[in-house]
């Protein structure tokens, strides 16, 4: 395992210390070393925004703590939900008396831990509501789409909710736009090779040379199918079809788009892929609003890419236009 690491069991702690040192706007919560927060939070009369999840997806989740973005993030071990205590501490640390919105990714562990933490906050009189991102179309069929996992679509959710909260919206308003984002967002991943959890030390799964896994999950969960590695153009076609069909996007509608690398994919190739994705959307007469191409939500050193689309409307367009300043996204 070719890694920059001291002790693999403490890679998350070491990373958090490095981020705290590199980013003057951030701090590790003094009461809990698995919570990263904006120094400025809690921000007076603003709803607190929190996310959380396993590590290994950097810049998600902690890279989206920032101005007009999240106020704090609960940080789990690699690919593992943070404990309830971390969510609780994150919630409490950013509440300015206006309540807290927790916007996370719908994995079983996160669900249990968030719910326990929400209960703990209620006992202290702090109101926390939550929205779960369910953008990964390959993680469950459409009939049970509430079971789907959240992946790169979270970036839109955090951006939109962060903008809304910064405008002084109430908790219910923030929850509403976050839920709307989720309803209008879909993602799909393609994996070209595996990733290695540092503490495990060997690849999590395997993709044969010359093959690709369509619909792979963000932790290497098996996808819809394994097939021969296609050209970027054909992969783009399949990815666009998967998300556009599921969201039932029609001609003349407008989407915003994220193409995110999964960790080890050269940036060059993300743009090669985007070139073909854009052509494919053009061919369907679909308009494109905002475009983000880069490493937004990764899976350690997995080689692969995710496509995320969000159906736009005036409200979402305006909220995407608001400035945001975080490690992972600056617009």
């Amino acid at each position, binding site marked *: 395992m070719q890694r920059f690491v001291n002790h693999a069991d403490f890679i998350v702690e070491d990373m958090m210390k490095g981020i705290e040192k590199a980013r003057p706007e951030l701090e590790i919560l003094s009461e809990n070393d698995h919570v990263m927060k904006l120094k400025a939070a809690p921000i007076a009369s603003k709803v607190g925004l929190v996310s959380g999840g396993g590590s290994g997806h950097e810049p998600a989740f902690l890279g989206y703590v920032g101005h007009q973005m999240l106020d704090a993030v609960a940080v789990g071990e690699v690919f593992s939900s943070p404990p309830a205590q971390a969510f609780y501490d994150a919630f409490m640390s950013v509440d300015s008396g206006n309540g807290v919105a927790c916007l996370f990714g719908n994995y079983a*562990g996160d669900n249990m831990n968030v719910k326990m933490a929400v209960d703990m906050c209620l006992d202290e009189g702090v109101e926390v509501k939550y929205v779960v991102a369910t953008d990964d179309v390959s993680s469950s069929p459409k009939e049970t789409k509430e079971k789907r996992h959240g992946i790169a679509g979270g970036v839109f959710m955090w951006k939109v909710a962060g903008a809304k909260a910064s405008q002084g919206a109430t908790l219910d308003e923030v929850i509403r736009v976050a839920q709307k984002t989720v309803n209008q967002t879909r993602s799909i991943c393609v994996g070209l090779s595996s990733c290695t959890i540092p*503490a495990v030390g060997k690849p*999590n799964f395997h993709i044969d040379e010359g093959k690709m896994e369509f619909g792979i999950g963000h932790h290497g*969960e*098996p996808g819809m199918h394994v097939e021969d590695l296609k050209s970027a153009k054909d992969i783009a076609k399949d990815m666009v079809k998967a998300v556009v069909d599921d969201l039932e996007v029609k001609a003349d509608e407008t989407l915003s788009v994220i193409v995110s690398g999964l960790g080890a994919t050269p940036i060059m190739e993300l743009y090669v892929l985007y070139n073909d994705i854009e052509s494919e959307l053009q061919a369907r007469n679909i308009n494109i609003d905002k475009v983000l191409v880069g490493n937004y939500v990764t899976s350690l050193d997995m080689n692969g890419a995710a496509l995320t689309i969000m159906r736009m409307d005036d409200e979402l367009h305006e909220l995407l236009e608001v400035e945001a300043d975080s490690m992972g996204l600056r617009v």
Partner: protein
Amino acid sequence: MKFTNQEGIEIVETIIACIQKNRDYLSEIDGAIGDGDHGINMNKGFTLAKEALTGKENMSTGFQIISKMLMSKIGGSMGPLYGNFFRGLYVASKQHEEIDGQIIGEMLDKAYDNIKKISPAKVNDKTLVDVLDPAIYAYHKEFDASQDVNKALTEMVGASQAGLEATKHMVAKLGRASRLGERSKGHQDAGATSAQLILESFADGCKKLLR
């Protein structure tokens, strides 16, 4: 047949040692249809618990320490699930100086109830419930019939093994493996594996002390 809560701390140590020993095995099983970290998650929590033990604990407070470490430090699914499980073992035994077959049964019930409170998992969903449910049922069946705690523990271990084996033929309904659908068949469940190890080392620990 009984043992003191004080002596029972050995059971806590036996369970911790068992999880530590099976770190890689559990991850390997999780790797087949999950994300390959089950052993890491479990080992980290139980190792932190071991380090937190001061030497002054009895069985109950030992289980309490495991519970606290899992809940506050581990997260994942295992933090809340096993955190609540061990809290049940703690709560149902903490007021007893001596532990007998009756109390062991209550401990197992409380631990399992706590899991049911936070998880929607039912039998046949391919989770740790598929070990816990038949094993604890078997314990009660035998103990009710014979009042022989040793025999009841043996029955429990046997049923846990059968329950674990049965997960191989199930389709996962919850957790990461559920997205595999039919393809999750043919693989043993990771959480069920750790549950089986925990019940078996719990039984072994009890049997050594029961006189």
